[in-house]
């Protein structure tokens, strides 16, 4: 089923309220922008006919149960062809179960937990669940390798949010890879979502004497962590993950983040023309540089458009089949392609450096 004759209905489930409203806001912005672009251009050409895209955005209030009911509502009440979102894995997983059992495509822009796209019972990939980002183990390994090979460190410290699966996942894969390849993690410290005081952990890290500190945490927390470390007299470089990748980081950090590195999906300065166009349009519309959530949401929409175009009809099953075999999608965050029989894209990562208050390409990363 799915879709009236002259519009393509797409649903978005986003964290507009609740614990990570910034993520939801970016997701919503990018979604609205993407749809507006298509509609301004007269619609999307599917099977020789132009269709307008109709967007339904549902708030999940940062709650797992509301994510499920929002997804269910989009599928049954609004009759959408596909769902983009939710973003955080803890909300994406319950929604993905609904999508999978209803046979509707769900693309999470930002959920990095490997379990999102895998049926935990059978360990087989879910058929209808995709994502636009890379997964935690990949990134954990990328950063660990970078720390060992490029920065030539042997002693690292990690501080991560124990209550958040994203942070914890990356932290653990980092530790594993780092130690397997000859480094030692001298301090592996945690805090809980919402904490603002990291002085105890930083003091402890300072005692342990690392050569580099890995902070796989959100851009709203990283500045506080680095500032407090500096106040304690810590001078070693800091490393981060894609969650650093928001222009807000620079505003919140001031000078404190200067010179540090993080892995992410794309480099705004070395961007493809397509990416530059997106960034400029986004800046013009919302007055800020798009963060990773915005870019990934935009790409998730791009994936969906390409899939429906190659399916040639507005049909849920056809969209899924087309998406699974999408040849090569040129997105804002790089090229991607889904691994055979999996919802996880093959993507490359880049290492960026904060330089003069800008994110600058530093290296391409290999896992």
């Amino acid at each position: 089923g799915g879709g009236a004759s002259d519009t393509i209905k797409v649903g978005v489930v986003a964290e507009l309220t609740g614990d990570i409203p910034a993520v939801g806001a970016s997701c919503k912005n990018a979604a609205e922008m993407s749809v507006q672009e298509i509609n301004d251009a007269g619609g999307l050409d599917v099977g020789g006919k132009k269709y307008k895209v109709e967007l339904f955005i549902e708030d999940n209030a940062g709650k797992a149960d509301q994510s499920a009911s929002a997804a269910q509502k989009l599928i049954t009440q609004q009759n959408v062809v596909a769902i983009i979102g939710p973003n955080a894995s803890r909300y994406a997983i319950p929604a993905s179960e609904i999508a999978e059992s209803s046979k509707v495509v769900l693309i999470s822009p930002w959920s990095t937990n490997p379990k999102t796209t895998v049926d935990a019972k059978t360990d087989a990939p879910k058929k209808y669940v995709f994502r636009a980002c890379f997964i935690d183990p990949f990134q954990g390994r990328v950063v660990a390798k970078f720390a060992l090979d490029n920065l030539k460190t042997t002693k690292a410290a990690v501080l991560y949010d124990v209550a958040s699966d994203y942070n914890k996942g990356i932290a653990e894969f980092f530790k594993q890879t780092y130690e397997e390849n000859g480094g030692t993690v001298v301090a592996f410290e945690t805090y809980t979502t919402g904490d603002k005081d990291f002085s105890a952990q930083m003091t402890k890290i300072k005692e342990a004497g690392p050569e580099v500190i890995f902070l796989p945490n959100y851009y709203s927390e990283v500045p506080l962590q680095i500032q407090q470390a500096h106040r304690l007299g810590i001078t070693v470089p800091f490393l981060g993950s894609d969650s650093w990748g928001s222009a807000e980081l620079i505003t919140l950090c001031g000078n404190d983040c200067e010179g540090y590195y993080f892995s992410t999906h794309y480099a705004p300065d070395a961007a493809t023309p397509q990416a530059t166009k997106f960034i400029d349009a986004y800046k013009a519309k919302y007055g800020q540089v798009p963060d990773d959530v915005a870019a990934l949401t935009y790409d998730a929409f791009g994936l969906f458009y390409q899939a429906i175009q190659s399916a040639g009809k507005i049909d849920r099953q056809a969209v899924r089949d087309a998406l699974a075999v999408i040849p090569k999608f040129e997105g804002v965050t790089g090229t991607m392609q889904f691994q055979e029989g999996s919802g996880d894209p093959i993507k490359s990562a880049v290492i960026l450096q904060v330089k003069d208050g800008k994110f600058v390409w530093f290296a391409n990363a290999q896992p």
Partner: protein
Amino acid sequence: MDAQKTPQKNIQQPGKGQKLGVWKQYWDRFASNRWLLPVLTVAGFILSILIPQFNLVNPYIQLILMYIGINIILTTSLNLINGYMGEFSVGHAGFMAVGAYTSAVLTTIFIPTSLNPWLFPLVVLAAGVAAGLVGLLVAIPSFKTRGDYLAIVTLAFNMIVKSIIENIEAIGGPRGIPGIEKLTTLPWAFFWTALAVWVIRNFVYSNFGRGVMSIREDEIASDLMSVNTRQAKLLAFVISSFFAGIAGALFAHVLQFISPKVFDILKSTDILIMVYLGGIGSITGSILGATIFTILLEVLRPLGVWRMVLMPLVLVLLMLFRPRGIMGLREFRWFIPHYQLLATHLWRKKKEAANAPAAD
């Protein structure tokens, strides 16, 4: 905290017009019909089987119905402590977590998939028992501590449960347990909801329940009127947490994914809001509160960000106009056990009979 120290009680009798009076009469007759309860229960149960069978309503509404059921269990059970016993527990999600994790571990790790549908009732029961046992532990501080101090105990309990789960890698740590089988079906949800409501109602209208209520009114007097206050508190906590555990199990098996974050203090706050919205010390109030809250959340969805601005306003306004919630300390007549009314009824009859000959 003691909710009952009220110097002034305004029993409001809103002025009703003639027309309303007629309606009220109908409503009263409806509301006091004692056949209503069994009829509703049976009808509900049959519907709960027919709905998924013939897809009478779409899966979205079915999902919401299941949420409503789960929320009713949570609200009714919390009302036992916050409404009937007059304490202020802010950690109900903690008990829910215990139940959810117990059941999820059972169905994902210990029980073979093929047996899951058959053993599900037992799994839910086990979840209830596990939560009930933990409830026993929390009840102990309540012997010595009351009011805001007990509130902190329950708050700390909630945080501790969350923190423990986050630290146990075997049950997924902060990443939670994905891929839980969808075993909660509409009939099951209805069955457990009806059971919870029925059991709690029976308890409340027994002398044990009255004992619990007397603790709310005046603990010292209660003890002096032969109420074993420790036993009553223990019972209240255990029953309450037992059903929270059951709700947790159902929740896990409808959502198919749980993580410690789901059961944080904000979840507890949601349950609190449902309880006070519906009304303290009233089971029908809890049913209404859970239903209205769940539906309102869904209906207001199109408001986006403003939804969460509007919801609290609704709550505040309701509190201002009905400080005890919609049904505070009241109950529909048809909901009260039959014998409860029968005793006084019989009594009146007897007295009338005794008076009648004298009048002649």
